[in-house]
């Protein structure tokens, strides 16, 4: 993460303890060279690598959630900057507001000139507050919609990056019709005749995520999550307990691989070992490559076919039993 020290997560604690032990022994070794100690350290280092791999190969859903929410995880602006240093941001809903939690702009993605849209969590505290911790106001969705229509007019493919706990649940947001802002985006996205690809890069939280997620292809980063309600919300409603977050994570099937198995998403994008926050450039390149792959396929389709493709995709979603009448 650009030379900054990476904040460890709770489930990484054993790894951290081992690393501290190794460090201590290395200090000891420096003061007092000793062949036996050297062998011990070598063994511990091997153990460390083994532990790390096994830890990341066996993450529980709640661990994925922790990585997806890591405060140093790359955000929309980090991707846009890496993809196109000269990307041009488009501001505002034209009606009185420019929501920092929703970022929109023009960018060059390989050969594709695209409209980029993404939620933004904010890094520093002030920034986080301005971005409402990544929870857009209705005006943010309306800004996205204005730009969706712009992309439709000029035949620009649309790339949406999703990383939001959900739409902001505030008094003003309700009064300015958060529900309608989301609903309208769902309908209008369904009707576009340009390619739309969405990537869940962190948290995909409920309707607030879906409002920029009605895409021809839905991709997810390996450790990102996507769910109908936050696991905390789910636990408190269904278990009536704040302790059952891990159970809620498990029950809801919110990880990238589970959702891929369910057929809801189309591709899982590999992250650097330990998560995207360990290497922004790696993550950004992987996402870029995945997007270019999808766009290359989608741009073979005509406008009406793209719309039909999107309609068909969501038409199939759901699971039910059809009894004999």
């Amino acid at each position: 993460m650009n030379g900054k020290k990476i904040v460890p997560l709770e489930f990484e604690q054993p790894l951290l303890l081992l690393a501290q032990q190794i460090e201590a022994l290395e200090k000891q070794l420096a003061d007092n060279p000793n062949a036996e100690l050297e062998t011990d350290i070598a063994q511990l280092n091997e153990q460390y690598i083994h532990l790390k791999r096994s830890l990341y190969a066996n993450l529980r859903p709640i661990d994925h959630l922790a990585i997806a929410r890591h405060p140093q995880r790359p955000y929309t602006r980090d991707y846009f900057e890496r993809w196109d240093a000269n990307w041009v941001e488009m501001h505002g809903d034209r009606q009185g507001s420019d929501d920092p939690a929703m970022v929109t702009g023009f960018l060059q993605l390989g050969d594709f000139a695209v409209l980029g849209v993404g939620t933004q969590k904010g890094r520093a505290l002030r920034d986080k507050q301005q971005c409402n911790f990544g929870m857009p106001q209705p005006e943010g969705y309306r800004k996205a919609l204005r730009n969706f229509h712009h992309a439709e007019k000029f035949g620009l493919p649309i790339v949406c990056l999703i990383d939001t706990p959900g739409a902001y649940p505030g008094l003003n947001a309700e009064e300015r019709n958060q529900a309608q802002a989301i609903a309208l985006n769902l309908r209008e996205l369904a009707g576009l005749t340009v390619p739309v690809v969405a990537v869940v890069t962190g948290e995909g939280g409920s309707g607030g995520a879906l409002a920029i997620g009605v895409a021809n292809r839905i991709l997810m980063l390996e450790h990102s999550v996507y769910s109908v309600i936050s696991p905390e919300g789910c636990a408190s409603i269904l278990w009536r307990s704040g302790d059952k977050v891990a159970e809620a994570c498990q029950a809801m099937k919110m990880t990238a691989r589970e959702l891929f198995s369910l057929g809801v998403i189309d591709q899982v994008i590999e992250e650097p070992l330990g998560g995207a926050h360990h290497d922004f450039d790696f993550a950004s390149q992987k996402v870029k490559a995945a997007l270019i792959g999808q766009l290359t396929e989608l741009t073979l389709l005509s406008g009406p076919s793209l719309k039909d493709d999107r309609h068909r995709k969501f038409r199939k979603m759901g699971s039910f039993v059809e009894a004999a009448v």
Partner: protein
Amino acid sequence: MDLKEWFASRRKSREAMQVKQPLTTEEYCALWTQCFQCRELLYTRDLRSNFQVCPKCQYHFRIGADQRIEQLADPDTWQELFGNLMSSDPLGFVDTDTYPNRLIEATRKSGLREAVVTGTCLLQDTKVALSVMDFGHFGGSMGSVVGEKVTRLIEHAVEHELPVIVISSSGGARMQEGILSLMQMAKTSAALQSLHEAKLLFVSILTEPTFGGVTASFAMLGDIIIAEPGARIGFAGRRVIEQTIRQKLPNEFQTAEHLLKHGQVDMVVERTKLKDTLHGLVKFHKRKLVASAKAESREQIAQGKVSSRQTR
């Protein structure tokens, strides 16, 4: 009959009218309903004939899908569609109980297979596609079946060029179906995109309560949106908002009347007038399609006249 006899018969008939035994609690409850709002004791039969609206304070009692349909559809015209769809358990979801058990319990309580009933009927002789949600079944939550039935009804309407009326009442998404319940928002909205392109009328009616994924998809996409008096409608729940903004919300917040004031619904209509209002709106918009078709043909005739004049 002399006066004495007459008095005796009066006494007898009065005695016959009097209830011999005091009412049991159940009988009492069946006979009388107390208004939740003004606390008035109402004769249950009167309440029902008044569309379950308190005649004293206009409080609108929650009603089930069956009563809704009875109130709106012309007699004997209701034809249920897609009633054979039932929920499955795609995630094998278990919280403090399994999802299948909860489904059985929901059906036992509501007498319905699912939280929405869909079909067609006549509305003062005009055919419409009608979808009615029932809060009594699983809190009116939207899972795959609700999404599928609403979507199929919209497709049916597109195919048969019918206006669509959707009456919502929902706590939001059905969490037990995880992401699949979220996707019903996209599915129904995409169906409405086709309806929108087909330029067919969609009237959305919001009733107590309508929240979450239902509000943030089809319920807010009506060409015309009607709310019932006093209904609480919103995206996020009241408690969630209070926790987020750390202050108490005003009482009228998220009521139908509050939404009207904030430009979110076109009108608040009392249940007793709902059928007339709907019929008026459907008729108003239907007539226009005919008229504009007329205009096209009139212009063709007019152009025909012009060109025939020119060729002369």
